[in-house]
């Protein structure tokens, strides 16, 4: 391994193919302390990249360094896994388990063998995600949002140095999303990487945003820099302008446009979503093809 760095995560020219599909196609990036959001349409390579950082998938080519260790070696993987919290995109559940039993089981896999200390930690993480009242309910009786929070809770076990979360806010209602933001912010000097489709999550939560598509990094910077991509290029009007690159009707009945504004149009401040849409070249809903 030639990569040596003070960064928490280093990705160097990493490739991962599945048959003829290039899921990750030459990604380079470094992560430091703080919360980074990974944006991208479905099939962009987010999950594959997160799986490689979570050590459950090996790259075909390229170099990785996670928390100072090399995931290509079994000793390195063990070292990383002891300091990692991971929420897969679709974590399964043992249907007969209660929320408590489920998180307790993951705690066992995380080598927490002392029962009392483990149970205290399970209670802590379930309380942190707001599930203290339902921890004795069977998982099958919980709503989708609650199950998602059970998944987040297991990732928080042991207060990991690196948290890798694949679409953690999917299925959460606005209040739960707010609570989730507080939870991540309270982690302080730790590294969190989360993937999302929600540009407002990125705007509210992340110090940094990485947009990927077709397995390549398209944008890497602060959320306001992503919004700035669309500066002076977003305008609203009562009628749809056919020359705009993108146009959609907003809740207030106005048509929001992205592109080259005609003279005299009402320029509005861009949002992270505007910048992201401009980057994608089309609305998220249209790019969601897989």
């Amino acid at each position, binding site marked *: 391994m030639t990569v040596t760095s003070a960064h928490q995560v280093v990705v160097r020219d990493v490739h991962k193919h599945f048959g003829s599909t290039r899921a990750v196609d030459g990604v380079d990036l470094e992560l430091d302390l703080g919360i980074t959001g990974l944006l991208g349409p479905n099939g962009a390579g987010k999950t594959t990249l997160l*799986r490689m950082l979570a*050590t459950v*998938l090996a790259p075909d080519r390229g170099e990785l360094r996670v928390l100072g260790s090399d995931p290509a070696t079994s000793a390195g993987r063990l070292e990383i*896994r002891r300091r990692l919290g*991971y929420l*897969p995109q679709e*974590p*399964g559940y043992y249907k007969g388990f209660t929320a408590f039993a489920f998180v307790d*089981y993951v705690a066992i896999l*995380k080598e927490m063998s002392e029962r009392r200390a483990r149970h205290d930690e399970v209670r802590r993480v379930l309380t942190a995600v707001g599930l203290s009242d339902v921890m004795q309910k069977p998982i099958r009786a919980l709503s989708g949002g609650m199950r998602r929070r059970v998944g987040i809770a297991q990732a928080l076990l042991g207060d990991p140095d690196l948290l890798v979360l694949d679409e953690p806010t999917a299925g959460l209602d606005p209040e739960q999303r707010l609570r989730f933001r507080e939870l991540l912010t309270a982690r302080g000097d730790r590294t969190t990487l989360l993937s999302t489709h929600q540009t407002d999550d990125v705007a509210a939560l992340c110090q940094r945003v990485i947009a990927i598509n077709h397995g390549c990094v398209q944008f890497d910077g602060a959320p306001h820099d992503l919004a700035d991509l669309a500066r002076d290029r977003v305008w609203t009007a009562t009628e749809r302008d056919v020359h705009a690159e993108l146009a959609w009707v907003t809740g207030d009945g106005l048509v929001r446009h992205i592109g080259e504004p005609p003279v005299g149009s009402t320029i509005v401040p861009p949002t992270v979503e505007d910048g992201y849409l401009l980057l994608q070249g089309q609305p998220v809903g249209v790019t969601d093809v897989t």
Partner: protein
Amino acid sequence: MNPWHADTALLDRYAHGSTDLASAASIEEHLLSCAECRERLANTADIDHVLPVGLIDAMWNEIADVVDRPHETLVERILHRVGVSESAARIVSATPALRLAWIGAVAIAAAFAVWAAYGSTHDPIVFLWFAPVVPLAGVATAFGPSIDPLHEVALAAPLPATRILALRTSAVGVTAGLILIPASLALPGFAAAWIMPALAVCALALALGTTMEAARAALVAGGLWVLAVPSWIWFSTAEPRRLAAQLALFGPTGQIFWVALTAIALSVVYLRREQFDFLAHQPGAAS
């Protein structure tokens, strides 16, 4: 109105836990009905003197722990009883698929045991043919995304994947063995002849499991075995063919072959053990 009140010295001794049990019971009875003494006690007692700092928290934690503690399944309790650690017992009993396999394997093994003990026609080759398939259920249901809903979470956890695999495989294997071994004692001359083929088939499934999902690997290995015995009988030139096949597959030469196959397969498992550590060969890895 209560005409009698506890004296201050007595209350003080009670607050510090230095009264005898009879006096304490008497004071408590009185306190239940006397608000004035309760108030005096509250003023007298410095709660930190009465109960060591943290004791109440510790007591509450103890209660919470008893309430929250996950319910132990029957399988877990049995494993616990025979000395398996709490963690290992939970890992073994966690997946519903594994529990089903266990019950299935035990049922088949038990049926064979009854058949071997009381059956009227003891043709050993039927037993020897099917017995190795029983512990294979352990390999089939030990690992992989289609068996274990928590497969990906488990992979990212520090507990080695190979340990989970070994624990679950051996749990079914040992149980099946415990039932099959006594049953096979009823087969004169061939009592232990099925054990090496069983180990070889399981080892082969594990070796195949480094390139495909465990359930499919077990199906392939089991299928090969199930076909091998009748094929041998079919193609055997010596007469009687069943006896010739029996001697060839389960006799000394056959046993040496199964030992060799087990050794080779386990070497493959050892050399390729890192494959169990990744999703790489699992379906659904692409996304």
